């Protein structure tokens, strides 16, 4: 009886292991998978690409007197029902506009921790403390060496849920970014990218 029971258990296990969904890596370059109601990496890629294209073609980052602007990333508000790290959007934009040669990003000041390198201030704290004497003085940064940013990138991601019909909901995601001249307070550039989705009411958009 025991043997039969063991055989049945093993048979069930054998059958069930074949039903487990196989894990596969996503082909990030040619991902033709269905859309999801929440924001996925393809939406961030699309929004970032449209932002970069708009910014680079606007010519607003080309400094009239030559040279490069210093840009910091300010506050990007996540006004959606999802837990989103806004760096998913800004990291791509920062990388591309830096590589375009038109701006230099600063890590000395920023809207959130990930935009700042705490070592910039830590090293200065060390310089001003008793520990500073342990370092060769010419290897420590002098006072007044940090460069303040000319421009700030800020904005928000906003989500709107609407009832489309009895079975369908519509979710609209607004990606809004702007660049402000920190000396004059004037807005250099701004862009909104809208991504809309429709799906089952049963699906959850967060």
């Amino acid at each position, binding site marked *: 009886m025991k043997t039969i029971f063991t055989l049945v258990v093993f048979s069930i296990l054998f059958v069930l292991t074949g039903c487990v969904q196989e894990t596969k890596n996503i082909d990030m370059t040619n991902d033709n998978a269905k859309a999801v109601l929440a924001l996925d990496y*393809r939406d961030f890629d699309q929004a970032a690409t449209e932002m*970069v294209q708009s910014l680079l073609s606007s*010519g607003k980052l080309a400094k009239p007197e030559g040279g490069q602007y210093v840009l910091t990333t300010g506050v990007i508000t996540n006004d959606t029902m999802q837990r989103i790290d806004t760096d998913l959007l800004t990291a791509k*934009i920062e*990388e591309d506009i830096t*590589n375009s040669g038109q701006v230099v990003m600063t890590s000395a000041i920023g809207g959130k921790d990930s935009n700042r390198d705490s070592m910039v201030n830590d090293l200065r704290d060390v310089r001003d403390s008793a520990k500073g004497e342990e370092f060769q003085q010419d290897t420590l940064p002098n006072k007044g060496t940090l460069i303040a940013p000319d421009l700030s990138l800020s904005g928000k991601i906003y989500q709107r849920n609407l009832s489309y019909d009895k079975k369908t909901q519509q979710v609209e995601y607004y990606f809004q970014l702007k660049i402000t001249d920190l000396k004059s307070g004037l807005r250099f550039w701004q862009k909104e990218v809208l991504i809309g989705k429709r799906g089952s009411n049963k699906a959850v958009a967060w």
Partner: protein
Amino acid sequence: MKMLLLVACMIATVVLTGCNEESCDGRVQVQDKVKSDNLGGNIITRPFVAAGSGMLGHGIEITDVKQTRNEAGLLEVSVIGFNKAYNPNRFEYYTEWLDESGAVIESATDNWMPFSVNARSNFSFKVVSKSPNAVDFRINTRKNRKVK
């Protein structure tokens, strides 16, 4: 009799799909149901015309590609075309930027971008290189299956 009518409609469709009423200025596009009725816009014949267009495999046609360098020294490419189909065409395009040696310049925002064109309409899109080192480009397209 029904079969004959269907065949006649199909033949008329195949013959007339290229004879759409043109605007006097190509820059102004007047869509079906806005302009005077024709085979492609008529409520009865439209399904047959669309089917005929599908049978003929009508799709987009690239009519011009313009390349300029902007003030910041970045390469800008404008792609201009026409959707010959009687249905909207939803596709994605992917741009690769090449440097002087022909090598691809990689960037963080290299991805397929969605684009949608109305039936029998002109379209254009512009892409800007993300590096001043770009001297040439390649653009690839594919059907957009995520959008309906």
